[in-house]
């Protein structure tokens, strides 16, 4: 809801506007674009300058965990990574979503049903270590991927309220815990 103010333009009746209707939990206003969504709606990315401006603005949306704890339970993280459920007009509530990470990323040594829209995150923690900078970067990337790549295909899990802070902590544990199948064969 906090995003309503930045909605780029609520246009009069365009063919886009006339072609959609609210259904279930998906209100029609969802099709009106945020500024960066509009800037990223061509085959090619916008200019470097525009990208940098978007990234700077998106960076300010990131909220780091208030208690300073970044890691939950990797087992629950796995379930969240596997589930692509949520936020369609068939879903009953907007508050019980998966992260859909496997739609786009390889993660564990065992799960072969992974998508390839994003890079492989296999052995993420093992390869990158758990230094503070890496941990904070990863949290930020999951919270709002657009802060690091303006037109990223990856959703803004935190900023767009797809996942809760607690769910993000579980996913973080899945990526970093040495016992998680992401890092352990």
């Amino acid at each position, binding site marked *: 809801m906090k995003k309503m103010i930045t909605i780029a333009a609520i246009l009069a009746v365009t*063919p*886009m506007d*006339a*072609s*959609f*209707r*609210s*259904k279930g939990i*998906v*209100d*029609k206003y*969802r*099709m*009106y*674009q*945020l500024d960066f*969504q*509009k800037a*990223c*709606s*061509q*085959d090619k990315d916008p200019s470097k300058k525009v990208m940098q401006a978007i990234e700077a603005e998106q960076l300010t949306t990131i909220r780091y965990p208030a208690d300073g704890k970044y890691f939950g339970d990797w087992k629950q993280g796995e379930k969240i990574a596997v589930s*692509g459920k949520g*936020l*369609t*007009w*068939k879903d009953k509530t*907007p508050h019980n979503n998966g992260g859909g990470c*496997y*739609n*786009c990323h390889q993660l564990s040594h065992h799960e*072969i*049903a*992974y*998508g*390839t*829209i994003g890079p492989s995150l296999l052995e993420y923690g093992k390869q990158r270590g758990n230094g503070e900078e890496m941990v904070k970067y990863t949290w930020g990337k999951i919270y709002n991927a*657009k802060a690091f790549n303006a037109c990223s*295909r990856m*959703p*803004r899990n935190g900023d*767009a309220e*797809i996942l809760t802070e607690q769910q993000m902590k579980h996913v973080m544990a899945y990526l970093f815990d040495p016992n998680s199948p992401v890092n352990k064969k």
Partner: protein
Amino acid sequence: MRNRTAQFVMAAGMIALNVTTWSPSALADAATDEIAKYREMLADGNPSELVAAQGEELWKVKRGTKNATLEQCDLGLGPGVIKGASAQLPRYFKDTGRVQDLETRLMTCMETLQGIDTKELSKTKWGKGEMEKMEALVAYVVTESNGHKINVDMRPAQMKKMYELGKMAFFYRGGAMDFSCATCHGQADKRIRLQDLPDLREHKGAAAGWGSWPAYRVSNGQFWTMQHRLNDCYRQQRFPEPLYGSDVTIALSVYLAANGNGGPVLTPGLKR
């Protein structure tokens, strides 16, 4: 019928497994493989045949306030000509002054020839009532274009305008997940989980994606029209619902068909 469906499920499962072992060079041959696979699956018959047979019957049944059949319906090649007609849709129609896809054109025929009120269609569930009839008619018509080539006439200015609208819609990002069609269909050789995603910006991907729809979906045992396919992709895109037969859905079809022009029509398709 039940046995037949079981065979399709197995075949589809085998294809899903194959995906993981594909090398990049094998992916280059994917389009030709698709055709080979399609022919192989059809050796046992396509469950769409039953739906199409119902559609053929419906085509000849007198219905509506005018108590007439659809036999004089003009799908673009003249009244009553079905062979090859859907391979050339969407098309600009002078009589309605609109670019129409197969479904909206059938709606016009139902209204003008039969006097059937098609406004209710957009409120009707897939597979139910008048929508079920529409699906059967679509299955019948597209079967008669199987083996033809995608051949949409892009000369009229109205078609060019719809193409531009379709292209705009294709890259239009929005919704809770910031997705556009291009998020999932705007790169070569990508997949979601194990589901291959055609690159619909390019001829090859568009020909494969557009040319194999409408299709029978083995996973849920349903025949889906193109409007239904687009509707479900918008659902996955976390968008609100596109209205049945709306300009954006027709424009996207023009974009896909034009990109795939010249490619093979393999309809009704057979899908996971």
